[in-house]
């Protein structure tokens, strides 16, 4: 049989793109690394799980319903979101995780030759989707661990279609306060799409943190991303959404894949979206873990960046990929940051205190 002529069939920008290999399942990793337990501190999941009402929905989901297609456009959830944020349901598009809505937006606005502008050290999926779609990703270095608004504005040219801002930034936890975001939007002057990814906004307690949802009416070029994977503990069900001005959302709808979000995810998200008590409990847990870990890291003399969000970054005096392997052998999975262009840094999810204690003990074995 002749081999498939992949070199001829694949576009150059796809051929040169390196696929992302996710980590193996827990059982396989535990066997491989010889550890009896495994704590995942690499994906910033919520240790409390989904809110109680969402947990009830999951427990009570009738199996025969799995045979039926879900609502193709998450009708019920969009009603709930509209009520919560005071918008029209059609101002929301729901996707199979926020990753999918990134694709919707880039496909809607960009063609080869266009570019997006974002940071070099941020959530990688903006860059990935652009790159394997033949779109130039202009990566602006962070300044003081934060998105550099002036440099981003300076990078705009005629072919710039979208500016992606991760607020608060993953992995640094830095954020643009309201005034800075408004200045940025004013400078863009509605001429480009500005995406503000608020995947971790529910963790932020700072008074000056801007609520992007409230800015959509003033800035119709603004698109907000949110997710149920982090604060709402539904990462395993894959559900996220975008919100924007009706005209803009209607334009993005053309590239939106309907029926991509399963019924259970939609129902669980509907049950979760108004649970503010869950948010408060999670914030309390993160606050406590962050305080504990800060103290431990100071004691160990390790530099760290602890901004907003349920994670923090630690600088090591060793290769982060080596630290990954050594911590894995002790049953703790962290995120090595070389791939985020933060060599010798690791990112750690803030979770239950007992797990943080185990992590601190394991880290001590590496630094002594």
């Amino acid at each position, binding site marked *: 049989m002749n*081999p498939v002529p992949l070199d001829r069939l694949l576009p150059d920008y796809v051929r040169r793109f*390196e696929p992302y*290999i996710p*980590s*193996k399942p827990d059982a396989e*990793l535990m066997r*491989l*690394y*010889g550890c009896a337990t495994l704590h995942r501190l690499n994906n910033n999941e919520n240790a409390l799980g989904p809110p109680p009402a969402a947990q009830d929905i999951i427990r009570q989901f009738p199996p025969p319903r799995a045979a039926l297609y879900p609502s193709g456009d998450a009708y019920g959830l969009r009603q709930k979101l509209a009520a919560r944020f005071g918008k029209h349901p059609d101002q929301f598009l729901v996707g199979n995780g926020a990753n999918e809505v990134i694709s919707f937006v880039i496909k809607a606005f960009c063609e080869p030759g266009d570019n997006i502008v974002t940071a*070099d050290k941020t959530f*990688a999926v903006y*860059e*990935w989707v652009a790159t394997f779609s033949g779109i130039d990703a202009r990566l602006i270095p962070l300044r003081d661990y934060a998105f550099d608004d002036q440099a981003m504005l300076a990078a705009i040219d005629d072919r710039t279609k979208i500016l992606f801002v991760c607020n608060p930034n993953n992995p640094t936890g830095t954020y643009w306060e309201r005034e800075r975001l408004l200045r940025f939007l004013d400078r863009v002057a509605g001429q480009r799409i500005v995406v503000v990814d608020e995947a971790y906004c529910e963790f932020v307690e700072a008074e000056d943190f801007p609520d992007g949802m409230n800015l959509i009416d003033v800035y119709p070029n603004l698109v907000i991303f949110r997710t149920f994977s982090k604060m709402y503990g539904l990462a395993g069900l894959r559900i996220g959404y975008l919100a924007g001005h009706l005209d803009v959302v209607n334009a993005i709808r053309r590239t939106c894949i309907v029926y991509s979000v399963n019924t259970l995810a939609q129902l669980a998200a509907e049950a979760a979206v108004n649970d503010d008590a869950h948010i408060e409990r999670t914030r309390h847990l993160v606050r406590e873990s962050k305080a504990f870990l800060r103290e431990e890291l100071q004691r160990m003399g390790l530099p760290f960046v602890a901004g907003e969000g349920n994670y923090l970054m630690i600088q*090591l*005096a*060793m*290769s982060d*990929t*080596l630290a*990954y*392997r*050594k911590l*894995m*052998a002790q049953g703790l999975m962290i*995120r*090595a940051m*070389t*791939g*985020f*262009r933060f*060599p*010798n840094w690791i990112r750690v999810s803030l979770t239950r205190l007992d797990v943080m204690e185990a992590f601190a003990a394991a880290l001590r074995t590496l630094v002594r």
Partner: protein
Amino acid sequence: MEPQVAKIPATRLAISINRCFLPLCTGFVEQSARAFGLGDSEALSLTLAAEEIFNYLADGPACGQNLDIACLGNTFQVATVFTLPTNTLNLRAFNFTFRPALNEDQLPADLGLLIASRTVDHLQFDLKAGKFRLTLSKDKAYPALEHKPLLMPRAEPAVTFRRPDPAELLLLLNGLMGLSPGRRLPPEFAQPGKVVDMAGAGLYGALIAVDPAGRLGGGLLWRRLSDQMVECFGPYLFGQPAATARSLLDHLLGVLAKTPAVGLLNRYPTPDLPSGYFEVLGAWGHHARDGSLPEIPVHYRSLEEDTGAVAWTHPALRAFIAKEYERLAFARDLITLSAAGERISPYSVLTTEFNRPAGVVTLRPIWWGEDAECNLREHVRVLRQEGLRDLFFEQDLGRSWQSHFTPALLAAGFSPMVILPHGGHGDLLMFEHRGGDLP
């Protein structure tokens, strides 16, 4: 982004392997070599090597086969590639040491591959997708670097890290000679013009550190060894603080992030190599011209979270390999090779990669057979006679059958030195030959 490898201009010839086509082959190679810019002497050398190979093929293993000959014209080198299908080939004939059985009245045409290797700079075999490929490369002539230290203007601490233009890269390479004498550098660096041309072709990447006035404070070079492996050289500093070395490496790691590379190797560590960036995989010996055998540490850094792998081992090396994996904290499913009396080929086949300027030969197995020990010993004997000092054998731990070579390697004087994670299909176990009659 990494440098893009430039498209290489090429000429091609398709013929049958028959002595009557020899002038066609040599004429094609010579004309192509000249057209690609080789000087008279180098073009003649490449042509002579091609003639030797063609005669060797016509006299023996591949007579009558179809043969594709391609000449590739890099800016710094011309390569001639012989490609032929393997389905009817006796691969044993491609052992470097193969001697065909001769009638008494025949002239010995043996060791033709070895003779060809003497006139070129690099010779390499590979076997892929049912095709056997033999590549002869001749480098263009470049003036050697003058061994006079270049006095670099004293730079302030660097503030800018960027790609050099050709003149700046030349300055960096010249400046390296002014650093501590006797420092071990890649042999190619002795011909800076060649490195500049290779960088222009996308085969080397480089970064420089520049002070506010534009003075060169240091630099770093790298080269892709395979899709998965990158080798870096440096960082080299000219009176800069240690932070400059860290910044150079941080920039390189940023360039390599989100590329297929999973490992970064550094076999030419410098005193400026910052701690904490690399792991030491082990060391191998370098047979220096003065007879000494300095140990060269092999520095490595994983660029990704390691997801584990299978590694095959012969029982004789299981303890060594397991200990190394434990020391390096690599999680591997170590499987011990077993034999159950299955039929074994009588002959083994090795490929040989020559790097004559560096005096290095790397042997790689392509077929396991009962004569492995004799075959290895014969390779060592011939290669030592050829004046080659550093002999390596690469065993791919991701390919089970390669572990069969282990007893033969140990008996022939090879020692396991370093495991290079993800260096091949799986991890590579590097053996080095020590002892014997060194040139």
